[in-house]
């Protein structure tokens, strides 16, 4: 056992390199050919299948599963990617138990749905491993579209636009493309640098240029983009993190969960990554779970998720919650932070139990404290620096139909836009649909100018 295993404070190297490597292996190893065959045989090929309806990108799962069953997994991959160009990542990160697999009639019948997600990964991994990009571009239209953000929404939008023959420039603030696929998802869900491999594969379509270090609001303005490009798609995600609004929140080692997840994903040597012995994560979503589980896997001794409402209100799926508890994470519900204690660095965090009544959430007089040398905020993100003149609603960019914003020629999708569940798959659907709308609009204008 590593010397640092039980050291108090936030220190690196709690576990040996071998233990870390084992902990951060692929959380759901891929199906082999036979396993895929057996899993595919379970699909009933439902009429007007509920799994299709449940998928935000409407992947025709019965069809692609039948294509796997009949020995044509590459055709299956095309079926998937035709609806969802990031089908590979979605197969890894989608909360399938709330989407396709939750709707599967075998879930109803036996509590054991067809493994749609795993089958999707089997098909898409196979095609991508061959380096095959199954789509080609339509004849060049001469139109240019600006996409802000190389996350799931922006990439899906750019790919569909490129397919339609438009040229796309993606403006990305960070060093790498992928957005939350690269920076915001637990390592064990997308091992072997999958997010980058997927982007590289996606870009094989051609006609897409990514410019890094380009953040909207710095040197880049929406007005300038509108002036230079035929259309603009905004998919920059949510850059800000909500505050705890608890006393002492600014103490050392109180961090955003998204930063922790990002640092972990970008780390080339996990033994150098510091983590607390007693870690508390505030929040109830996937980010909270990803941060908590990874803190455990890095060697934190006690990790607790504290969520202010009841367990049934947690946005992390039941499967995610079970994964957390199975990883040794404790989940406390109905408690909200009121104060962060410590002298410089956090040592304890104080909570009040809550009651969820008709008038909203109420803090009770019942209090408790948890020992904490590291605290992660995972209570949601917010849109930072929305361009002026853009109508907002509920803190997000207001959109109509397929992502049309209040400004003509400007579309938006993904987490920064109103609507959807802030999932990768939702972002892909929004980006794709906005691209179709942009294409229709551009085509219409081309006809106008010809007349």
């Amino acid at each position, binding site marked *: 056992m590593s010397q640092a295993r039980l050291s108090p404070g936030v220190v690196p190297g709690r576990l040996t390199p071998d233990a870390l490597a084992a902990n951060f292996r692929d959380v759901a190893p891929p199906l082999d050919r*036979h396993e895929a*065959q*057996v899993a595919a*045989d*379970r699909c*009933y*090929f*439902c*009429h*007007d*299948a*509920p799994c299709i309806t449940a998928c935000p990108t409407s992947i025709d799962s019965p069809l692609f599963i039948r294509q796997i069953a009949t020995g044509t997994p590459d055709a299956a991959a095309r079926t998937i990617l035709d609806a969802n160009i990031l089908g590979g990542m979605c197969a890894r990160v989608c909360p399938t138990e709330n989407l396709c697999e939750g709707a599967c*009639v*075998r879930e*109803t*019948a036996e509590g054991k749905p067809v493994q749609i997600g795993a089958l999707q990964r089997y098909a898409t991994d196979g095609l991508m491993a061959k380096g095959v990009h199954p789509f080609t571009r339509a004849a060049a239209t001469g139109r240019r579209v600006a996409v802000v953000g190389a996350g799931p929404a922006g990439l899906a939008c750019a790919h569909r636009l490129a397919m339609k023959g438009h040229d796309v420039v993606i403006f990305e603030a960070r060093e790498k493309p992928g957005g939350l696929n690269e920076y915001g998802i637990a390592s064990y869900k997308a091992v072997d640098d999958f997010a980058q491999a997927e982007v590289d594969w996606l870009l094989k379509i051609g006609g897409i240029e990514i410019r890094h270090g380009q953040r909207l609001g710095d040197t880049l303005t929406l007005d300038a983009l509108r002036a230079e490009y035929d259309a603009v798609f905004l998919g920059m995600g949510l850059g800000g993190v909500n505050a705890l609004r608890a006393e002492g929140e600014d103490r050392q080692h109180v961090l955003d969960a998204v930063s922790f997840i990002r640092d972990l994903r970008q780390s080339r040597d996990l033994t150098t990554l510091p983590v607390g012995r007693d870690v508390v994560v505030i929040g109830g979503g996937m980010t909270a779970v990803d941060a908590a589980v990874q803190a455990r896997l890095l060697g934190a001794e006690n990790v607790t998720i504290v969520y202010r409402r009841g367990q049934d209100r947690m946005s992390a799926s039941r499967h995610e919650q079970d994964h957390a508890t199975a990883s040794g994470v404790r989940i406390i519900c109905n408690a909200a932070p009121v104060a962060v204690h410590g002298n410089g660095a956090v040592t304890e965090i104080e909570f009040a139990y809550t009651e969820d009544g008709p008038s909203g959430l109420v803090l009770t007089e019942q209090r408790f404290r948890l020992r904490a040398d590291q605290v992660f905020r995972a209570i949601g993100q917010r849109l930072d620096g929305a361009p002026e003149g853009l109508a907002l609603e509920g803190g997000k960019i207001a959109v109509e139909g397929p992502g049309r914003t209040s400004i003509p020629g400007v579309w938006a999708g993904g987490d920064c836009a109103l609507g959807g569940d802030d999932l990768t798959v939702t972002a892909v659907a929004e980006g794709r649909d906005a691209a179709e709308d942009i294409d229709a609009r551009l085509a219409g204008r081309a006809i106008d100018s010809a007349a």
Partner: protein
Amino acid sequence: MADLRSNFIGIKSPNPFWLASAPPTDKEYNVRRAYEAGWGGVVWKTLGSEGPPVVNVNGPRYGVIHGADRRVLGINNIELITDRPLEVNLREIKSVKRDYPDRALIISLMVPCDEDSWRDILHRIEDTAADGVELNFGCPHGMAERGMGSAVGQVPEYIEMVTRWVKKHSRMPCIVKLTPNITDVRKPAEAAKRGGADAVSLINTINSITSVDLDLFAPQPTIDGKGSHGGYCGPAVKPIALNMVAEIARSAETRGLPISGIGGVTTWRDAAEFMALGAGNVQVCTAAMTYGFKVVQEMISGLSDYLDRHGMELSDLVGRAVPNVRDWQDLNLNYVTKAVIDQDACISCGRCYAACEDTSHQAIAMKPGRVFEVIEEECVACNLCVDVCPVENCITMRELDIGEIDKRTGIPRGEYANWTTHPNNPMARAAE
């Protein structure tokens, strides 16, 4: 535990489960293991004439059809009769029979179609103490090209002639094994009976190509880029075999002729079905080739439990379903049923809807919330919805009472009446 002891044309065995003449019964080692595992009898793999034995291919002998999870649904083979010297087989048969006197041991035979060949081989097997012979008139590949096997079985006159020779030159019980590769199985069965056969066994394997290698463009199994049709067996052929057994069991000309049922018997239930349709016992091959000899233990316990549940003797089962196998024209056209969907059991897959809407009578409605309901006005009771529903007993057929209105026709359900008296039948006889 029901008494499963079987007496088939005077041949006794502790149960009615015999291994069919095939690769599993080619030699002493296998047959001893089969008996130890519990098989009631064995039909030794077909012996040929004295002299240099036949040879087999040295590439794949079997092709396969897989179901889900590589479940073996059907196998075809291009193996010929035994390729071991006659003397070796005879010595082994004698040795095994001496050690297992209570088990049935039948010798399968196939020699050229002349009386001398048959007399000689019958003479050679005389002192093996075997319980009977089975004439292999069924093997459809290889040997048939040489005028044997199914080449004989496809000509009723040859069947009769050879059977007569066998009865003339041997006192052993004689079973004639029939090929299904004919148009009317009753004709060869009648010929066997005329020739003096004590029983028929059926079916032998069906001419088949299991699949085509789409890279080599060659049938499978493929031998150096070429393939030959083989004999198909296993669960996939059972429905064909059941019908052929029933045809012989119910035909006036062959009624009462003992039948050894063969063709895809995999479980006790398959065996019971063959016996209900008139088979006195069953022979098994593919199930043993797929799962090993131990499968017989499930067949024994299953058949025994079934007989106990129904308070039947084994002999009560044999032929019990035969009176209910009828010509189509005898079926009651006033038997009216309607599909009923159990909404609590329904998992809303919509397969019944797709099947009925696309390929049948548009008699199922898809309502909001994926609720599927039968439209009795359209339902012809075809049963397709029941067949495609993945949930057992979710869709059932309700029989209308006599006098109850059939909503599709508006006519009250009447008493039994069949096609022979139906007004639409130009050949109708007046109802009596």
